[in-house]
């Protein structure tokens, strides 16, 4: 009996590695700590009422961002472990299987559980405010999307301590990811973690498309819409076309593993290449899903901090849409070497190179926006400027990779690793950090202290080049990706050491950001944003107080110009004030516990499917169904009104006048 329990425990819990025991202990301690603090300060009710059941897009946005930063930490620790292992030859910090698990979880977490939620957080914070709306189109669905993402991410992370992590790479190519070669539960965690959060992403895509189409303030025509909102729209259009492909692909892989199917197996007619095509039909557009909103942020930040209108607004919008469409015609550049033939390769090589054209247009627009502008070097602007030279490198090496014959040399080498990190860190992460700094006062009502932010900036930036430039050379010297260790005779030691130093510099940069936030909270009073418009913004979100009241706009703005709030400030300076309409009762959605509860049931069902335990997945699925039915029956009284008097009182309190 005891032996049986022991055996079960050792397959269920991951054992044998001191690092994992350390993680177990720290997870347990963190949980106990959280429960203790919440109980001690009697905060359970507060947590439930204000956060777990909220449908307010601003709070949902903050929760997304918090979760994303947590995941950045986890993915970052993975990255540092890998770089430590590769710092010099023959390091035995991680044995090869563990190394495989770490690069897999690092890649998956960084893209799906860090970049995506950080992006959705910024969507939630900024889009309704930029278009003068009181909420997103479907607030309930929005909360559900968040909780699905969160539960998916937690399920994925659970694999680290229970059952074992996936180790077939961040895209889980079969046949390696098939039952035959990955018999453990790691791949199942991968499939269900992504599947559950993916449903949420798809719903977010639909939600923001409807929000942007239908909820713009009166007068805001398409061509008066802020660029960031445009970028969100483009990104969501890609989401609704790309994510169903991912859903199907993962479902088919799961059917292979769980139901004995033969979609991608080596025998019984399965076709692994089918998977590779499908996953990249989602995977390549995915890269543009995350980078286009970053382009939107750069456009906003660069024009605000140059005190100029964005140069070439229209060409910017067209360029973003061009990229969105083209992104669906390049997927095969990820497997030029897998024997598709010369004509297919040529098609995908050319379509890939064509993307450089709209991208180039955008870079010139940003440069012309800064040209002769009155530039102020606040942190958001610094990140935006730092992006430009870096993205030139990423773009240039990208075009090199798109040359099909040359790719036979670069494929799966460190050159590629350096390229995609340039694009993902320099393009995506820098952009979201710029956005985070930019909208921070709107979220929390205070600006972050600049000095630690500048330290963070320099550590991140210098570390970034120190880390990734050597990797281009290493790739050309023959070092391949996903390599867990190498010998002295390769001659790769010096550059690898430099690269590792760079990674740690970025880690220090991250610590400075944590410090910056702590200092910001400590000096909250001094840093308070009383104007609602600390940067001299152009768009509507800066016309309301910081942080925005729960109903956003006391009266819905009437938009007249492209940078409407900027134009309005100009007019006010000239003494022209427009008449304010009377404040009326405001219609708001009620909080709901269903999104949270339903996602917990999804988690339970996912966990059951991971282990193939019907005592979990059947109740989980039933719970999901019951939640859906409840929602359908109770959806008739999901709203309430804030009386006009209360709105007036709130406005008077935050603005100091009515």
């Amino acid at each position: 009996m005891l032996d049986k329990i022991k055996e079960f425990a050792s397959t269920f819990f991951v054992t044998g590695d001191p690092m994992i025991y350390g993680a177990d202990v720290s997870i347990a301690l963190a949980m106990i700590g959280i429960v203790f603090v919440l109980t001690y300060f009697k905060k359970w009710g507060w947590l439930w009422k204000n956060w777990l059941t909220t449908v307010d897009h601003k709070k949902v946005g903050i929760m997304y961002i918090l979760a994303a930063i947590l995941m950045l930490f986890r993915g970052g620790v993975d990255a540092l472990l890998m770089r430590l292992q590769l710092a010099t030859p023959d390091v035995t910090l991680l044995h090869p299987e563990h190394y495989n698990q770490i690069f897999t979880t690092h890649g998956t977490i960084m893209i799906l559980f860090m970049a995506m939620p950080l992006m959705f957080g910024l969507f939630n914070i900024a889009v309704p405010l930029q278009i003068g709306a009181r909420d997103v189109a479907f607030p309930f669905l929005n909360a559900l999307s968040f909780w699905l993402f969160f539960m998916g991410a937690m399920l994925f992370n659970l694999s680290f301590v229970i059952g074992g992590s996936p180790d077939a790479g961040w895209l889980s190519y079969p046949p390696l990811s098939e039952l035959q070669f990955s018999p453990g539960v790691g791949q199942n965690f991968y499939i269900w973690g992504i599947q559950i959060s993916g449903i949420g992403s798809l719903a977010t895509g639909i939600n923001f498309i409807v929000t942007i189409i239908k909820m713009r303030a009166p007068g805001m025509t398409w061509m008066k819409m802020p660029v960031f909102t445009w970028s969100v729209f483009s990104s969501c259009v890609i989401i609704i076309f790309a994510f169903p492909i991912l859903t199907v692909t993962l479902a088919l892989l799961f059917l292979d593993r769980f139901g004995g199917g033969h979609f991608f197996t080596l025998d019984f007619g399965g076709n692994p290449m089918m998977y590779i095509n499908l996953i990249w039909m989602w995977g390549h557009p995915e890269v543009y899903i995350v980078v286009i909103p970053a382009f939107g942020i750069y456009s906003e930040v660069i024009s605000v901090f140059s005190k100029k209108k964005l140069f070439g607004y229209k060409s910017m919008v067209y360029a973003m849409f061009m990229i969105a469409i083209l992104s669906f015609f390049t997927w095969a550049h990820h497997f030029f070497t897998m024997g598709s033939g010369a004509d297919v390769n040529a098609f995908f090589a050319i379509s890939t190179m064509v993307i450089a054209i709209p991208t180039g247009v955008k870079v010139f627009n940003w440069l012309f926006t800064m040209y002769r502008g009155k530039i102020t070097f606040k942190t958001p602007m610094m990140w935006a400027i730092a992006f430009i030279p870096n993205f030139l490198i990423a773009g240039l090496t990208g075009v090199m990779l798109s040359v099909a014959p040359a790719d036979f040399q670069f494929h799966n080498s460190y050159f590629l690793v350096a390229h995609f990190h340039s694009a993902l860190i320099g393009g995506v992460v820098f952009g979201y950090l710029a956005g985070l700094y930019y909208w921070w006062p709107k979220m929390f009502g205070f600006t972050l202290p600049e000095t630690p932010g500048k330290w963070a900036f320099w550590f991140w930036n210098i570390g970034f080049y120190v880390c990734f430039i050597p990797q281009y050379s290493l790739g050309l010297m023959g070092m391949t990706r996903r390599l867990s260790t190498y010998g002295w005779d390769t001659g790769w030691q010096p550059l690898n050491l430099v690269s590792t130093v760079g990674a740690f510099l970025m880690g220090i940069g991250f610590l400075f950001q944590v410090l910056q936030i702590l200092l910001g909270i400590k000096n909250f009073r001094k840093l308070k944003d009383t104007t609602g418009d600390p940067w001299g913004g152009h768009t509507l979100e800066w016309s309301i107080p910081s942080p925005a009241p729960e109903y956003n706009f006391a009266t819905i703005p009437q938009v007249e110009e492209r940078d409407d709030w900027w134009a309005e400030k100009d007019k006010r300076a000239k003494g022209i004030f427009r008449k304010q309409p009377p404040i009326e009762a405001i219609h708001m959605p009620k909080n709901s516990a269903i999104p949270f509860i339903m996602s917990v049931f999804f988690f339970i069902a996912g966990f059951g499917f991971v282990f193939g335990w019907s005592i979990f997945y059947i109740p989980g699925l039933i719970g999901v169904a019951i939640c859906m039915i409840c929602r359908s029956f109770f959806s008739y009284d999901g709203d309430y009104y804030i009386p006009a008097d209360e709105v007036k009182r709130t406005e008077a309190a935050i603005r100091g006048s009515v």
Partner: protein
Amino acid sequence: MAQAAAHHSHDHDHGHHDPQELKMLGFWIFLVTDVILFSTLFATFVVLRNSTAGGPGGAELFNMTGVIIETFLLLTSSFTSGLAVLAMNKGSMKGLINWLIVTAILGLGFIGFEVYEFVELVHEGANFGTSAFLSAFFTLVGTHGLHVSLGLVWMIGLMFQLKKRGLTPETKGKVSALSLYWHFLDAVWIFLLTVVYLMGVM
């Protein structure tokens, strides 16, 4: 900033948007994502349709009589769901419920025949794991069947809501969305019939 004059007709909903209109647009976009989902499954099926790994192919397996009955049932149910919406637009609750009941019965008949067909196939030894072709077949057709089943659950739930709430803008919106969904499944079935069955037996 420029503030809107209060010229909206419904004074309380100032700045608020017609929720039914939002939901309808959202539902259309959801259907677009469902089109992509089915397209992906179709693509997989087309790629794998000849990968029978020495096992039986479509020509040997498909029972066209059953398929034609299924088609008839589903097309008719799509028509009756249209009649339900017509009755609703005329304000006739009774007509609406009755036509929904007819639609649900036809839909159930469709599912019944499909399940029977699947059971027959498995009996003949053609199951999900026999070959890539059959994995793709069961998944594609099964996904459609699952959609129809979910539609049935939705339809029954909606009938209860209609009884309880009567014809309100919300319930009307739900009926319109359901009917749209039902027509969509019909269209998918036409493709299934063509690509899977007709091209399979040819």
